[in-house]
């Protein structure tokens, strides 16, 4: 036994660190339009290759090409562009509001706007998302009021969650947006349960589960795959691979598997990998997976390849763990600019109209913010009361909580 060399411990390292040169040579990017599109009822065994490629529609010239070009009109795409612009503006304003002390915490979507915005459009109105904190586009693209989002962020008197939740942990059943948990991945398996329930009830509604690259390591991810596979639950299992989990590069969660989509293969779940910065590709793949679920063909795993251009949250500073310019070097570009380029290319949009739209959107967001602030911010104005703290622990206040509330005198 001692004739073999001794064992060595292996810890994956990212291609570069602060001070180094960003290096994405390991991200193999197929040409737009080059990946095939199987029928939605094709057998999972027949499409394993799709877990190791990247489905792309928009090419460098801003043209939509190949079998995945979706059936979206220029109006649809303009609406999508507007959603992404709104989300980016919303992020910027709320990031600043946090810096100004108007709330405790915020999380941005910069660089990942296409994923949630395009997915929402592909989904039906009664379907249910089980999102993470980085899918506010699901609300914005469904016209959930910005003011309500902001009131939640400010934990003010109109906060639908009555001050109880950390900022951005929205919940809106009416908008198909499940209550966000601060505990990573717990909602992933719940989405499968929701989908199982829909099937048990012979309903038509499907569920969409959301998780980040880093969070796929959690147990709930496995449980979700097991149950989805066994009961063929009508669910789309989304993995947003934005390359980072706080300071940890995706190689730590991914290990030797090559891709996160590959995780689905071991469960006989069709797994697709898509350019997450390509609005059209995201929409097309989402439609495909949603149709599979709706037609009772079972779950699909979708990995969105994107990049977290900003900090993890307002508590984070990425310059401590990755090269400053890494974001600029990300080879899949900016989802917003790529869609804009496409719209300009097909003659549906122009620089001037874009500048004008930017201004309009800023006005809308600022107006919403002003309105939200009339209901208070975290440390000023009116806010949820200590009484709100005791309610909703149970449907009815039990005796011990009644005593405690009395002690507080509210």
């Amino acid at each position, binding site marked *: 036994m001692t004739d073999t060399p001794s064992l060595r411990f292996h810890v994956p390292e990212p291609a570069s660190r602060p001070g180094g040169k960003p290096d994405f040579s390991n991200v193999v990017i197929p040409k737009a339009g080059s990946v095939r599109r199987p029928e939605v009822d094709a057998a999972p065994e027949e499409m394993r290759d799709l877990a190791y490629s990247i489905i792309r529609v928009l090419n460098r010239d801003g043209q939509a090409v190949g079998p995945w070009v979706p059936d979206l009109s220029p109006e649809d795409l303009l609406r999508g562009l507007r959603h992404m612009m709104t989300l980016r503006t919303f992020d910027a304003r709320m990031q600043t509001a946090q810096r100004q002390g108007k709330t405790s915490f915020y999380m941005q979507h910069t660089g990942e706007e296409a994923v949630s915005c395009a997915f929402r459009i592909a989904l039906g109105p009664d379907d*249910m998302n*089980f999102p993470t904190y980085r899918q506010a586009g699901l609300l914005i693209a469904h016209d959930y009021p910005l003011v309500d989002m902001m009131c939640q962020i400010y934990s003010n008197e109109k906060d*639908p*969650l*009555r001050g*109880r*939740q950390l900022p951005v*942990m929205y*919940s*809106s*059943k009416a908008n198909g947006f*499940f*209550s966000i*948990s601060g*505990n990573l991945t*717990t*909602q992933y*398996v*719940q*989405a*499968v*349960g*929701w*989908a*199982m*329930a*829909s099937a*048990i*009830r012979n309903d038509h509604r499907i*569920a969409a589960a959301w998780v980040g690259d880093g969070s796929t390591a959690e*147990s*709930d991810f*496995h*449980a*979700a795959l*097991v*149950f989805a596979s*066994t009961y063929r639950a009508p669910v789309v299992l989304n993995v947003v691979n934005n390359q980072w989990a706080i300071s940890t590069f995706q190689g730590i969660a991914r290990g030797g598997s090559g891709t996160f989509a590959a995780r689905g293969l071991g469960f006989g779940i069709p797994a697709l990998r898509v350019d997450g910065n390509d609005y059209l590709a995201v929409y097309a793949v989402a439609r495909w997976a949603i149709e599979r679920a709706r037609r009772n063909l079972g779950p699909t795993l979708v990995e969105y390849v994107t990049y977290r251009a900003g900090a993890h949250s307002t508590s984070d500073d990425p310059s401590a763990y990755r090269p400053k310019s890494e974001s600029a070097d990300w080879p899949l570009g900016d989802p917003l600019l790529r869609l804009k380029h496409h719209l300009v290319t097909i003659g549906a949009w122009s620089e001037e109209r874009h500048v004008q739209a930017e201004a309009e959107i800023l006005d809308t967001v600022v107006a919403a913010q002003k309105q939200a602030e009339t209901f208070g911010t975290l440390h000023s104005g009116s806010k949820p009361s200590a009484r709100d703290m005791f309610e*909703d*622990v*149970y*449907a009815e206040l*039990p*005796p*011990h909580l009644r005593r405690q509330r009395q002690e507080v005198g509210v």
Partner: protein
Amino acid sequence: MARMTMIEAIRSALDVSMGKNDDVVVYGEDVGFFGGVFRCTHGLQAKYGVSRCFDAPISELGIVGTAVGMAAYGLKPVVEIQFADYMYPAYDQIVSEAARLRYRSGGDFTCPLVIRMPTGGGIFGGQTHSQSPEALFTHVSGLKTVVPSNPYDAKGLLIAAIEDPDPVIFLEPKRLYNGPFDGHHDRPVTPWSKHALGEVPEDHYSVPLGKAAIRREGEALTIVTYGTMVHVAEAAVAETGIDAEIIDLRTLLPLDLDAITASVRKTGACMVLHEATLTSGFGAELAALVQEHCFYHLEAPVKRVAGWDTPYPHAQEWDYFPGPARVAGALRQIMESR
């Protein structure tokens, strides 16, 4: 009225609930075709179909996690964890999710589910088939925790749990499944068919959550207990002749504090009795509450009798289990110390 074991009573509660409400869905490991390792779900798949009662993969996390999603959808999942000792993989879903969904969503989503699990020792099950983890639930805001001590209550409480709008942990003392075990492991157990509380209505009824039962009225001291220990207490009281009042909590949370304080104020002394490990057990909460609310009535310290602070051993089962001899000794000690 019929004579039922606790297993039959639980099965009947599930049957009545599934019959009444299509939203009730039952699943867990070996729960479907086979009907559960303790047979509590036997016959339900045949009667209600595989969509209403089915086998689950061996993932307690997955069982509870999917149940949270189903409950949020609008169904009423009643899931089984094969032994309470195996609930830990599901603990995150119970504590962080089921218990807090209503609160964190401002009532937008709710989580009305029931998680059943057999608890307690006395079957030579060793450390992974004997645990009583109730204190790990009572510490968690948003959960209700129920422990029946007999077939009548088991059915009525389970129906109440299923009809409750909040997540309920339903702990089934497995040593009581077939008869009122009183800790005399060397004697044959009387079957439930010979016990008054083995008489169970076949139809729908419920026993309200949050209400204790006085199993024996007495003047000398109050024994606060639940589950298997109710019967051990009864045996110890009979053997010592000490005129204790025995309170069977039935629901640990919400707790029927009024029943406890009324009794202790009357008797002036209190023993808290459970099978779970002593330190940080639910008995600690009970003792803390009793001394707080009955301080000026207590003539002796509240005495806790509980499992030792060790894992549940196999061969030493009866050294570990707080049986009638230990309970009797503690009763005498309280009486002497006054």
